[in-house]
């Protein structure tokens, strides 16, 4: 039995280690993903773990997977009660293991069997409830993933099967004694002990009475022959070894299935929670469309981390047609970083199969998303900072492949501008030529101007808006790079009142 709620044909493997964790740490930090995940988890550590794992493993993903997950998420958004009920059911099922009286597997097959029988008995109750849930859902869930789950629960846990399981559990209590088969090994030592099924009494009692009995040799242990009983127990244990193992493994498998189901559901539960919060904040939400090429366009795209943190709606941005290179320039504190972050979030959420915080969002799939943001907090030596930036870039390059998305935020600006610009230019140029999508935020005019002059393959140039009065709208609009970055405006903002009061400056 498979869960298959994250991939059409397989279960999500939560046991695999997260790849490239070092770079993912940067991504998490730069895109503010922690804020999103915390909102999804709402204190539930399992949900938190799952959403993080699933999203970071979606940095490279197939189109079919995105569509598949979107379908399931749509279903659950329309039937929120169904998701929460199922999740609760699974939780209870998993708890039943802890209720078992025989609490630990000891070293003997008999006790392994005893515990497995008990847990299996407890699990049967929950398996029946799961089937009842599936029966209630029949026809209400339309996505491929959920209708598959519903029908497989109904099929695999049908009443006839569960009855049969119950009968076997009863038989394994061995009320008529244990029947073992064996052969003679080296030195005439008994070996190959295995459990046999006693023949069912098909004939009536008098037929059995008259039927010829196979010759038998019977002996009885002396009541005080303790070592004899010990030996008999061992012989029995040898015979039960495989069966106890099979049953204990089956318990594990059912628990494993429930665990897997819970984990995969946790992703959608996290999504549902996030959806509700963002909806309450008035953030526009939509299911994104997957484009066939590497273009990207959107309307009203928001930085969700910012919205969650500020507890209100935020300024959304539009991009009519993004290309392999998008260069964002303009006013300091004009929303450039926020813009970049929202693009990264949107792309990652699209690839994860989630909704996006925009009124519309269309983008082609990327082979990996990488961020290279200026590290403000890096209070290291000045000479070491540029070096650190380069080594970070080099680590990214080790993993880059064509089709990746790289978000560069004020990269290589920690050195003398002409040199930093030259390095950045060479990096950007090389990445583009190798088929990597680049979003570049920079106030290095010599870099952005050079790129603008070249206007490679439809590069897009955006600029943070500065209103005529010098205030920021935090909107990013199409526009060519300009020489100044409006530092003067900010100076005014900060020192303006001070200047006025002291009558030192002012316009």
């Amino acid at each position, binding site marked *: *039995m*498979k869960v298959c709620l994250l991939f059409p044909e397989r279960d999500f493997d939560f046991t695999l280690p997260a790849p490239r964790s070092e770079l993912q740490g940067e991504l998490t930090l730069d895109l503010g993903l922690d804020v999103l995940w915390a909102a999804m988890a709402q204190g539930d550590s399992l949900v938190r773990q799952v959403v993080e794992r699933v999203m970071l493993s979606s940095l490279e993903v197939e189109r079919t997977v995105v569509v598949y997950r979107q379908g399931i998420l749509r279903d659950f958004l329309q039937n929120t009660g169904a998701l929460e009920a199922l999740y609760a059911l699974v939780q209870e099922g998993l708890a039943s293991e802890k209720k078992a009286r025989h609490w630990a597997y000891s070293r*003997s*097959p008999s006790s*392994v069997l005893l515990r497995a029988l008990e847990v299996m008995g407890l699990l049967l109750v929950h398996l029946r409830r799961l089937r009842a849930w599936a029966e209630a859902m029949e026809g209400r869930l339309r996505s491929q993933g959920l209708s598959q789950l519903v029908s497989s629960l109904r099929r*695999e846990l049908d009443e006839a099967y569960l009855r*049969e*399981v119950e009968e*076997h559990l009863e038989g*394994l209590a061995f009320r*008529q*004694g244990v*029947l*073992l*088969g*064996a*052969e*003679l090994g*080296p*030195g*005439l*030592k*008994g070996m190959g*002990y*295995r*459990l*046999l*099924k*006693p*023949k069912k009494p098909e004939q009536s009692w008098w037929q059995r009475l008259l039927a010829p009995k*196979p*010759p*038998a*040799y*019977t*002996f*009885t*242990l002396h009541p005080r022959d303790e*070592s*004899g009983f010990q*030996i*008999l127990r*061992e*012989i*029995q*244990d040898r015979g039960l*070894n*495989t069966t*106890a*193992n*099979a*049953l*204990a*493994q*089956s318990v*594990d*498998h*059912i628990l*494993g*299935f429930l665990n897997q189901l819970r984990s995969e559901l946790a992703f959608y539960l996290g999504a549902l929670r996030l959806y509700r919060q963002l909806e309450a904040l008035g953030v526009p939400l939509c299911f994104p469309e997957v484009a066939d090429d590497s273009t990207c366009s959107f309307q009203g795209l928001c930085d969700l981390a910012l919205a969650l943190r500020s507890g209100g709606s935020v300024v959304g941005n539009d991009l009519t047609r993004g290309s392999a290179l998008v260069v964002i320039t303009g006013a300091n504190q004009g929303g450039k970083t926020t813009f970049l972050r929202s693009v990264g979030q949107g792309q990652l959420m699209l690839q994860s199969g989630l909704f996006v915080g925009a009124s519309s969002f269309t983008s082609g799939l990327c082979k990996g998303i990488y961020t290279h943001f200026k590290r403000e907090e890096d209070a290291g030596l000045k000479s070491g900072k540029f070096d650190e930036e380069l080594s970070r870039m080099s680590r990214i390059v080790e993993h880059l492949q064509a089709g990746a998305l790289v978000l560069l935020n004020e990269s290589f600006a920690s050195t003398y501008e002409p040199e930093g610009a030259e390095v950045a230019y060479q990096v950007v140029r090389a990445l583009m030529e190798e088929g990597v999508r680049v979003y570049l935020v920079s106030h290095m005019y010599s870099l952005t101007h050079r790129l603008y002059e070249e206007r490679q393959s439809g590069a897009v140039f955006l600029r943070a808006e500065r209103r005529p009065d010098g205030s920021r709208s935090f909107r990013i609009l199409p526009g060519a790079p300009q020489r100044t970055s409006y530092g003067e405006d900010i100076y005014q903002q900060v020192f303006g009142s001070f200047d006025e009061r002291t009558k030192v400056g002012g316009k």
Partner: protein
Amino acid sequence: MNPSLLWPSSPLALTIEPPAYFHDLNLDRVVEGVVGKLEFDLRPLFYTPLQDLEAIRYRQAVVADLEQPALNQALWTFTQAQHTLREHLERSQKLSNPYQRQGFFLEAAQVYVDAVRALEQALEENSPSAPAWRRVTAYLKNYTASPAFQNLERETQALRQALAEVHYTLLLQGDRVTVRAGGEELDYQGEIELLFARFRQGAPKDYRVGFSEWNTLNHIEERILEGLVRLFPRVFAELESFARHHQGFPDPVITTLDWEVQFYLGYLDYCRPLREAGFAFCLPEVGTEKQVSLEEGFELAVAQQQLAEGRKVVPNSFSLEGAERILVVTGPNQGGKTTFARMVGQAHHLAHLGLAVPGRSARLFLCDQIFTHFERREAAQEMRGKLQDELLRIHQALSRATPRSLLVLNEAFSSTSLDDARFLMNKILQAVARLDALAVVVTFIEELASFSETTVSMVAQVDPDDPALRTFRVVRQQADGKAYALAIARKHGLSYPQLKTRLALSRTASLGGSGEGLPALS
């Protein structure tokens, strides 16, 4: 005559005590490593070097054939089977339950028959060319064709088959045990597995419990067996008669073959880690010429330990040409001098056993005796007494040595004054040279390296970049005592060319400096 893998004709009398040089050459460690895991005490074989070339070549041919992996593997299997055979035979005599004794006797017969057949087949398939192997092959062919063997083989198989067909069931009900002949009862565990197959996923945890296995039957098993004897009377009657009628195995020649094989396999097994790490072993060319050589050899016991500890094993080479007889080894302490000397001695002893020696190629001397002189650390007597003792021992060795002997002298007289040591070593080297014997001399007296045209100077090397690092490489080189000092000088930029350059620079910087000239280079 019975075929032997060790002796072309009549065997030598084996030495029970290790030769005097064994400990000095670390050969005791090697031999313990080889025989430690073996069932037989094969030490005497390793204590007894062969004295004639024919015997050495007889064994070398056996070794050469063992390079065929299939044959090698077959022989391992053979020795393991012999071991099992002995265990079963022992049980067939010691166990108290008569049916069990008979059961193990049958088991022994099966192992024996299979082992003989497998060996016969392996020899036929690989057709080793050594005379020893050909003799063994011929013997086996004869033996397996004998009526006694064929009879044993046939009856063993028939009886085993009959016993394998004894299937029975046990019904355990509290204190009651019912034994019945097996019928068509259904396998239950498979059914259970099938029942839960739909939940199966991944690699599940294994809950099976391991049981300890004993060969003896306990009293419950005896009662079950009692029941089986009644349920299957014919099979057990046949078993009883089998044990009475086949007491004529194993054949003594095959038993001897077992431990002879282990002499070779034990040594190969000991060398395996080094061989797998890429270190070469070769069959030496042994002769009466004194122009000996060894290419990329190493001291076996030390190399083994270094490999196990993950340290570097450094092979070394040497060669004596024309009138050269004496290797004089000098160099820094802990630089691998003693190890080098041991290597030379070891190679000679191993060659005289007819075994492969460490190295890519080797030409070694058929010597009548090996003499060693290593400082006895435990003898903490007064200096005079110790010196006397050393001289006595060396004298003893020299008076028994012949022109066909090999001497390994390690750091003699290190506890006397330099003048005394120089004087005494000169005298001793003169004696060795007069004798025309082969010798390896490790000494700190560098001038001995150029004692005469019969000496070859070998110098333990240091890393030129870090003179404190020993390379454990010992190289034929003029021992002028400068290699080490020069390396230190270079590290400090004080070598001649470095000084030239630096001084030239400072000269141009400050023209008309001091008039101190440089000493001329010798």
